[in-house]
């Protein structure tokens, strides 16, 4: 992958870990949102992102397939940043509680 998206900001040294983390999550979104309207992810792009960038946490996003199907066509449907963020939230919950409880 020739993605340099995570090194964009020169001033990242003065940021706190939390802020850097936020930036990384944002940058990953933009890194994969390349087709069509670039402020949105297509379901396929999201699948790639989760598969490639979340190899360990993907378990927490177990219902991803169902969610993606609800969005619509794999290449046409648009995921806003907010929806992407919700999915990252699921991944986060997955790593908080081992063996995620419902």
């Amino acid at each position, binding site marked *: 992958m*020739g993605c340099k998206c995570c090194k964009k900001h020169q001033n990242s040294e003065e940021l706190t870990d939390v802020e850097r983390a*936020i*930036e990384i999550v944002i940058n990953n979104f933009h890194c994969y949102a390349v087709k069509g309207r670039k402020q949105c992810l297509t379901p396929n792009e999201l699948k790639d992102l989760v598969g490639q960038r979340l190899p360990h*946490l993907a378990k927490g996003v177990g219902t991803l397939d169902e969610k993606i199907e609800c969005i619509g066509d794999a290449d046409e449907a648009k995921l806003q*940043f907010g929806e992407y963020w919700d999915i990252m939230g699921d991944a986060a919950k997955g790593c908080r509680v081992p063996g995620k409880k419902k």
Partner: protein
Amino acid sequence: MHGAKGGEVMTSDPSELEWAIQTLVKNYDKYSSRGGCCCCCKKQRGISKGGFRKMLTHELNHMLTDTKNKQAANKLICDLDENHDGQISFDEYWILIGGIASPISCLIRQQEENVKFTK
């Protein structure tokens, strides 16, 4: 310089994005576990108002301005605290961070567009 991490599936090290998510989770835990909760209580109580203000000033002081503004922080808590229990749950916390991230995301996109036009 090494290329961007996380491009390939790794079995041991977390990817950069995973590190980021874990950092945000750890940050929540760091501020939520303190406080008057007894040690036998397994249920996490969430972030208290004081803890939340501390978090804003310590962790988000570059992304948010005026993080020491107590009034603004309290209003933010009231807005976030959907069930009005005076505590910020993990879901509420995640919404807050998303609320900060979303406009930044738009900005980054705009900057990229501008760069393209000026090239």
